[in-house]
Structure formats: structure tokens, C-alpha cells
């Protein structure tokens, strides 16, 4: 018979507010095998831990059950406590009576009943726990950064500076991301290109960094310290080794229908193109959907005029497989489509533009050379209206319920820049609230109002009507209750930010979770903000939620620090909760092999003597170094021939039986 100690935590009022912890301890004392039960205010504190250690010694405990928060939070804490008292750490079982009980219930009587049931299940499981010993695995000293925007670049540079090899995989033809499209940055108004492009060059020339542009992650397998990733490098149709980047091909390409992604569709580009003059690598790419040669087999002009004979229509995609110790996801964000916001005339009238388009219009390298003109007639506008929260904080279902966070600041920036360069132009901003926390942020916005005379109107725009060459903006001033009509020449919409459309698919590939809006979920919102739930995979930048540049850069640095911490380890302690195969029961169907996400199971042929007759048959064999203990195989096995240590079928059944008690 086991000697089990049960320790019930109050978690302050977190658990004790909804669960009668004394009653849980009292009930636990009567459970089979339990020789000691105690409740305490903070079991994870030093006092609480000492209480456990002391009880192990005094009562000769062979199993420890802690009824507290999620095992994700403190299982490792209590395992260490047990180990310090000489008990195998895997003989500790955690009953989650906080997240699974106290936090989600209000009725104390019911909550207490459930907490007792959960504790009983943990006691039943603990009875069957076996001592386990952790092994070791190596760490591949190389990091993968997915995304080549400012988040990815900063992460890669920081990791590379620490002396580790880093690969950046960027989906588009150039690194730089959204920041490359921006003209000036708040709150200092320094030019985006001036602070970004040197970083791009640093990344491209760093001896520890390899760039894979126009590439995508195709598959990911393995586990922390030992990921194996296949990267698909899409065919550029240009040999990067031969190309000198002269740009002649892009200049002469007769196809001019494609809209420039970099210039937000405000101008066209050739079918062969370099996204922008400072692009890295400075190698053109052929857009095969637009190219006349790929569509009809005729033309081929670029190939004929290329002085380096670098154009290669035959070039095919290449798949590179590489091993990594750590992965940082820095895939960034996008702006929502505005097709559901018909009242703003976006897409209907050329002078209604998005903020990102505005960035390109005011950019010295943009389609107008930085000359501030409106798209319809290239005249200088006299009145500009900015509309904030277009699709942000929107609970109607057309947009996103969250705050996009960056719009208040960039709208103030846009308005300020206009008023600074062209004091004769009027700038008005419609807003719900102005949200500008952050160092020097509120001062910045106030400067827009107080020094630059930007007119802020609290209220939303109801409709915009084109009238002759004006856009009549109908809104309400919520403070005075009066209707406001402005005859604007240009309207700028601060459309909401959103997660990348393929974020969820990437998340599934990496086994990291996404939230309801497809932003990647951090392991803990306060204490582990740059880690994903999957060990060895970290998050940087706006792929985790809307973020401005300063925040993105600091998060990138933090993710890099986490990755460096991992890569600097000689060995990682592996999880001893791995699966084992009972060869006598295994039929060798290998359903487990097919389902294993870590490639830890393979076929093995065994010879055996069955009642004196020699037989050969196939069975499954587990590579314990690769197994991550997910337990998928145990569910796939029809005969129950494969079992997970620490979570054996018997243990799970015991838990279920205890709950159905």
C-alpha cells in the first residue's frame, strides 16, 4: 500500500474563494492510501514547500498529491520539492483545482465537490505512478527565424551576435517587412528606411546569418533542441549568383499590369521586378502568373537583355532541409480588407485610402516621389480627414473586436506630418478614444493637437458621399452631439490589423496554438510572453498580437535571449514520460508510426518462438530520444500494446473510475 500525502493549496483566495479547501483536505484524508492531508495558503511558497518536504520525511510518504493550480504552472516546482526530500519527482501528481475548478465556478458547494473529485482522481493515479528517470538530448546550435520583418531581423541579429548560426526564412522576395513601407516612425519621426535598411544590410552580411527569401517553411518535425525543418525556396526564375542587380530587366519588362505589393497597389510593376530599390537581396523575381513568357511562351525579353544571362525560366523550387535547436516565429501582421465597410467608399473612390497607402504617398521613394497629392487628379488636397478604428474595437462582426493599438499613434503622426509640411492643409481626425500610452507617446499626440492644430473630433463617421471633386464626410461630434460634415479632398482610413491569413496553418505545422483571432498564443501572458506552449519555439512581434515597432524590437530581443539561452545549453533534460511497446501485444500495424508527430516510432522485425514454432513478425519500436510523450500513439493503438510512462492506460482508467466514483 502506498503512503500518500495530499497538499491542498488555497492560492490565496484564488482557490479558497470558491472551494472549501479544509473540506477537500478532510475528504482527502479518507481516500485510499492517504496517510496525511493538509491545506495551506500558498503551497508553492517556501513555507508550503517545506511543509511537503517535512511531511515526506515524517510520515514516510511514497506519493505526493498537490491540489493546486495547473501542472503547467507548478508541476516542476513540486517535483523539485519532492526530489529535494529524496522522493522520485515523478511520484508527484497535481490535481488542477484552480483553472479546472475554482476559476470557472461560482457555487462553493459544487466547486468543493468537484475539487474533491479531481483530488480523488489524482490520488488514484498517483497510487499507480512509477519512479522515472529523465534522460538527456543534445542541442543543434542553429536557430530558425520565420519572417524577415523588423521582428525577425532583430531576433536574428541578436542570436547571431551571440555566436550562433541563424537562418531567416522570408516569404516575400525581400526582407524588410511592413517597416520598409513606412515613411516616418513615431514618436521621434525618424525615417523608417534610415533605421531599418542598415539592419537589413547587417543581417545580409552577418557571417552567422543565412537568408532564405522568397521561401516558406514546408514542414516541421522534431522537438526542442532538435527540430528538422524543410524550407521551400520558390523559384525566382533568376540566378542570384549571376545577377548583378542592375535592374535592366525590371525596367524593360513590357508587362505592366501587376500592382506593386510594396507600394500598396498605388503603382504597377513589371512581371519581373525588384520589390523596392533597397530590397535585399537585390535580385529580381519573375511573377510567373503575370509573365507573358510563362503564359504564352513568347517574349523572354528580360532573358535576352540581361547582361549577366541570369534569367532562368527553367529554375525550379528547391527544398532545403536543415536542423535547428530553436525556432522563432516572427511572421508579422496584415491589415483587414475593407469590403464590408461600404459607407467609407474605399475601393469605390480613389481618394479614400488606407493609412498604409498614405505611408507610400508621403514617402520620398513612393509613387509620387513624396509629393503630397491625391490619387484621383494628382492635385494637392486642402482638407484631409482621418478616420480611426475602421474595423478595430468593432463588435458588429465586420471587423475585429480588439484595439489595433498602433493606429492612434500613426494617425497623429500622419496628421502632424501634413500640418508640418503644408500648414495650409486642414487635418481632422475622427476617433472613439485616443489611446496613447507608451514612452513619449501621449506627448506626441498632444503636440499634434496643440502645436500643429490637428482637429480631433470624438465620434465616428457615418457615411462618406462623393460630391463633385469633394468627399463629404458625415460624422457626429459625440461631445456636442452635433452632426459634422467636412468637405474633404482626401480620406485616410486607419484599418484594423489582423493576423496573417496563414497563421493558423503555420501554427498547426509548428504545434503552437493561436487565439480566437489567429494571433499566436504566448505560454503565459505575463511571465512567459515570448514563449509558445511548445518548448523551443518562441514568438516575436505582431504575430503574437498588435504591436508597434519599439515593442516589437524589445520582444524580438527577449525572444532572442530565450533562444540563446536554449542554444547555449550543452544538454537538455528529456521527458522520461515516453512510450513503450509491449511486443507480445503489438500486431505491427504501425498506426502509431503514422500518427507520431516526432518520427519516434519505426517498424522492427522480431523473431520469436510461439509454442515451439519459430515465427517472424513486424512490431513497432520506440526511439525514446525522439519520443515527446504526447500519447497520440497510445490512443491510436487498438490493442493497447503501446503505453505512455507516467500516463499509462491503467492510470488514466483509474482516474476516470475515481471521478465516476
Amino acid at each position, binding site marked *: 500500500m502506498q503512503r500518500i500525502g495530499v497538499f491542498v493549496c488555497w492560492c490565496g483566495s484564488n482557490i479558497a474563494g470558491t472551494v472549501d479547501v479544509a473540506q477537500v483536505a478532510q475528504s482527502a484524508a479518507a481516500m485510499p492510501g492517504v496517510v496525511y492531508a493538509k491545506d495551506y495558503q500558498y503551497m508553492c511558497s517556501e513555507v508550503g514547500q517545506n511543509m511537503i518536504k517535512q511531511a515526506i520525511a515524517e510520515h514516510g510518504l511514497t506519493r505526493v498529491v498537490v491540489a493546486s493550480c495547473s501542472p503547467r504552472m507548478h508541476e516542476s516546482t513540486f517535483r523539485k520539492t519532492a526530489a529535494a526530500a529524496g522522493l522520485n519527482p515523478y511520484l508527484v501528481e497535481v490535481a488542477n483545482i484552480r483553472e479546472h475548478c475554482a476559476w470557472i465556478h461560482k457555487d462553493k458547494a459544487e466547486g468543493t465537490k468537484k475539487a474533491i473529485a479531481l483530488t480523488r482522481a489524482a490520488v488514484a493515479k498517483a497510487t499507480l505512478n512509477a519512479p522515472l528517470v529523465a534522460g538527456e538530448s543534445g542541442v543543434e546550435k542553429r536557430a530558425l527565424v520565420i519572417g524577415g520583418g523588423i521582428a525577425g531581423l532583430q531576433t536574428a541579429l541578436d542570436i547571431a551576435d551571440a555566436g550562433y548560426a541563424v537562418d531567416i526564412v522570408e516569404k516575400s522576395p525581400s526582407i524588410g517587412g511592413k517597416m520598409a513601407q513606412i515613411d516616418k516612425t513615431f514618436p521621434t519621426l525618424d525615417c523608417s528606411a534610415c533605421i531599418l535598411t542598415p539592419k537589413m544590410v547587417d543581417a545580409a552580411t552577418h557571417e552567422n546569418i543565412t537568408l532564405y527569401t522568397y521561401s516558406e517553411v514546408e514542414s516541421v518535425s522534431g522537438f526542442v533542441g532538435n527540430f528538422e525543418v524543410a524550407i521551400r525556396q520558390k523559384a525566382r526564375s533568376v540566378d542570384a549568383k549571376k545577377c548583378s542587380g542592375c535592374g535592366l530587366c525590371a525596367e524593360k519588362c513590357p508587362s505592366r499590369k501587376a500592382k506593386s505589393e510594396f507600394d500598396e497597389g498605388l503603382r504597377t510593376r513589371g512581371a519581373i521586378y525588384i520589390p523596392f530599390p533597397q530590397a535585399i537581396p537585390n535580385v529580381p523575381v519573375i511573377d510567373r502568373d503575370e509573365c507573358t513568357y510563362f503564359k504564352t511562351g513568347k517574349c523572354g525579353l528580360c532573358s535576352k537583355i540581361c547582361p549577366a544571362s541570369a534569367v532562368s525560366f527553367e529554375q525550379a523550387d528547391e527544398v532545403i532541409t536543415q536542423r535547428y535547436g530553436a525556432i522563432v516565429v516572427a511572421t508579422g501582421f496584415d491589415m483587414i480588407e475593407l469590403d464590408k465597410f461600404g459607407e467609407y467608399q474605399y475601393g469605390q473612390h480613389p481618394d479614400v485610402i488606407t493609412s498604409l497607402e498614405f505611408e507610400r504617398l508621403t514617402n520620398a521613394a513612393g509613387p509620387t516621389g513624396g509629393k503630397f497629392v491625391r490619387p484621383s487628379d494628382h492635385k494637392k488636397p486642402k482638407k484631409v480627414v482621418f478616420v480611426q478604428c475602421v474595423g478595430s474595437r468593432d463588435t458588429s462582426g465586420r471587423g475585429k473586436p480588439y484595439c489595433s493599438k498602433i493606429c492612434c499613434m500613426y494617425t497623429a503622426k500622419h496628421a502632424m506630418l501634413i500640418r508640418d509640411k503644408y500648414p495650409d492643409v486642414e487635418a481632422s481626425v475622427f476617433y472613439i478614444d485616443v489611446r496613447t500610452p507608451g514612452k513619449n507617446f501621449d506627448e506626441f499626440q498632444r503636440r499634434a493637437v496643440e502645436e500643429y492644430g490637428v482637429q480631433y473630433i470624438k465620434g465616428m463617421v457615418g457615411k462618406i458621399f462623393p460630391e463633385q471633386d469633394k468627399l463629404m464626410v458625415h460624422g457626429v461630434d459625440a461631445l456636442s452631439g452635433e452632426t459634422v460634415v467636412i468637405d474633404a479632398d482626401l480620406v485616410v482610413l486607419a484599418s484594423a490589423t489582423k493576423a496573417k491569413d496563414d497563421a493558423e496553418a503555420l501554427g498547426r505545422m509548428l504545434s503552437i496554438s493561436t487565439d480566437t483571432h489567429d494571433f499566436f498564443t504566448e505560454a503565459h501572458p505575463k511571465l512567459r510572453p515570448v514563449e509558445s506552449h511548445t518548448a523551443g519555439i518562441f514568438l516575436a512581434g505582431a504575430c503574437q498580437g498588435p504591436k508597434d515597432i519599439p515593442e516589437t524590437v524589445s520582444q524580438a530581443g527577449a525572444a532572442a535571449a530565450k533562444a540563446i539561452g536554449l542554444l547555449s545549453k550543452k544538454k537538455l533534460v528529456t521527458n522520461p514520460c515516453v512510450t513503450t511497446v509491449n511486443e*507480445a501485444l503489438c*500486431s505491427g500495424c504501425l498506426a502509431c508510426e503514422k500518427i507520431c508527430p516526432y518520427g519516434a516510432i519505426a*517498424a522492427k522485425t522480431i523473431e520469436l518462438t510461439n509454442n515451439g514454432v519459430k515465427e517472424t*513478425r513486424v512490431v513497432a519500436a520506440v526511439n525514446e530520444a525522439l519520443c515527446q510523450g504526447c500519447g497520440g500513439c497510445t490512443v491510436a493503438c487498438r490493442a*493497447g500494446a503501446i503505453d505512455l510512462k507516467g500516463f499509462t492506460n491503467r492510470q488514466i482508467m483509474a482516474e476516470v473510475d475515481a471521478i465516476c466514483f
Partner: protein
Amino acid sequence: MEKIAAAVRERAKRALATGEVDRVFAWKRGEFWYDVTPAVFETADETDELLWDSFCVANLSKYLTGAVRQGFKVGVFVKGCDALAFNQLLQDNRISRENVRLFGLPCPGMVDPEKLKKAKRYRGVRAVARAGDVLALQGKHGEQQVEAPAYLYDKCLVCRHPNPVVYDELLAEPQPVRTPDSDRFALVNELEAMSAEEKFLFWQEQFDKCIRCNACRNICPACSCEKCIFDNGESGVAAKANADSCEEQFFHLIRAYHVAGRCVDCGECSRVCPAGIPLHLLNRKIIKDIQAIYGDYEAGLDPNVPAPLATYRLDDADPFDGHQKGGKK
């Protein structure tokens, strides 16, 4: 059919006489004229007993597993449904292909003695001969000719693979397919149209008849586990008696899910059930759903095509249609 039977016997005799194989798996006469039983032939002389007639319904593929892993080279006769089963066993690593010589037999459909009995064609019959779709019932008082399709097994009437999908040599001319594939789902459609309560009552009534003889499991080519979970004392679900009705329900539903995606729809489970439970309908419903969710996939057609339920692809259909993140919307 008698001509083919002679060729079948001849082929088995040659295979054993020349040492091409160590054993031949085929059929021989049982107690009665309608009773044909699977048999193993180890010498050429024994093959005189070997037969091929309208009652060779038993699927021989599953019998191979033991002989193959003991290292014997075996020859086996396979009909369409047997070949599907063979492929499935191959995919499940229960047989190795190189040790098996497959003799393909296009099948005209097998005769259900129960149907003859119900039609009162049973009494006095001593032998049945067959030419195409005409059955000659030979009895004490002479011969009586009847149309075969009226007396074929239901499963044979909706057979989609009368010809083996895999073989080393084919011993007869291919047979035509009788009906479109959709026909086999007619009864499934009827079940689907029932309310949840009606469905439950229907199956409860069926499963209540179960005597846990395990015939369905033992005949099933997808039930090829080394040791069935229901026979394993350690599993916690073993050897449940038919003490209350939920035991049978659990047994049959778990079995249906254990063979899901691997059931070749040979219909043997229903054929061998002494209680007459239409077990194949459970499997057919799952087959229909797999086809609806994952596109055309047929277990046993090609052992190299990954089974949709055992593989994961990013572009897999999401069966939780109508459910979005954060709950149903």
C-alpha cells in the same frame, strides 16, 4: 463454373507438386451440400477434395497470417472481396507479399442457403450446379433450374469488386459489376433518416440479440490484432459478459471504430452472425462518412495509399463544420 473448378484444382495440384508453394489455402466440402469450409492443402494428392462452387463465400485471406509468419510459401485463391482483405492485411503488416502466390478468381456472386431455404427450394437438394446466372438444383426427384440473382447474398448483389484487385494470375474471365456503388448505401441512408432516438432503439434491439460469440471479430480481416483488446485481461474491458445491454453496445461500437477506415466492406461480419445482426451497416456508415469527408478512399484497393484516418494533412477537411474558434457560431 465446373470447368473453372477443374482448372482451380489443377492449379493447386501443380503448385504443390512442383514445390512452388508449401501450402494452398482453398475450400472443401463440409457436412452438407451448401456447406463449404475453408481448408489447407499440404500435398498434391489432397487437392482432389478442393472445390470452387457457388458456396465458396468464406474469405481465406485472414487464414494466411499464421502460415506466412512461420516462413511458409503459400498459395491462396482470392475473390474480389478476399483480395481487398488481402491488401488490408498487407497494409497492416500481417502478411508479407513475397511469400504469397495469389490465384485470382472472378466471382459471379455467392449463393445464400438461407434464401433458398426461405423460398422453399431447400428440401431434397443434394447438389447445386451453376452456369452463369442459372442455378441447377439437383435433388432426389430430378433437376430444377432457378435464376441465381434471386438467391445471392445481399452483399454480393451490391458487390463493387467481383474481380480481384490484386493477384499473380487470374484463373477465369472477369465478371461484370452488377450495380452502381451507391446502391450499397441504401440501408445506411434509411438509418440516417431516423431520429437519434429511433436509431438508438434500432441498434439497441439489434445488439440485444448479441451472444458475444465473437464470430464477427474472428472472421473480420481488419480484426487481425495479435491479441484483441477484448481478450486482454489487463485492458480493463476484457471478457465482458452479456450481463447488461450496454456491454454489447460497447463491444460493437468499439469494434466498428477499431476497423474504421480499414474495413473493406466484405460483409463477412453480418454473414457469420448467428443472431442476424446487420453489423456491416455500422461499417458502411463509417465508409460513407469517410468518403464524404476525405474524398474517394477505399480500404484494400491499394496498400500503398495512406489511409485518411491514419494520416494527417494540413488541407484535411475540418469535420467540425459550423464550429469556429471560441465555440459554435
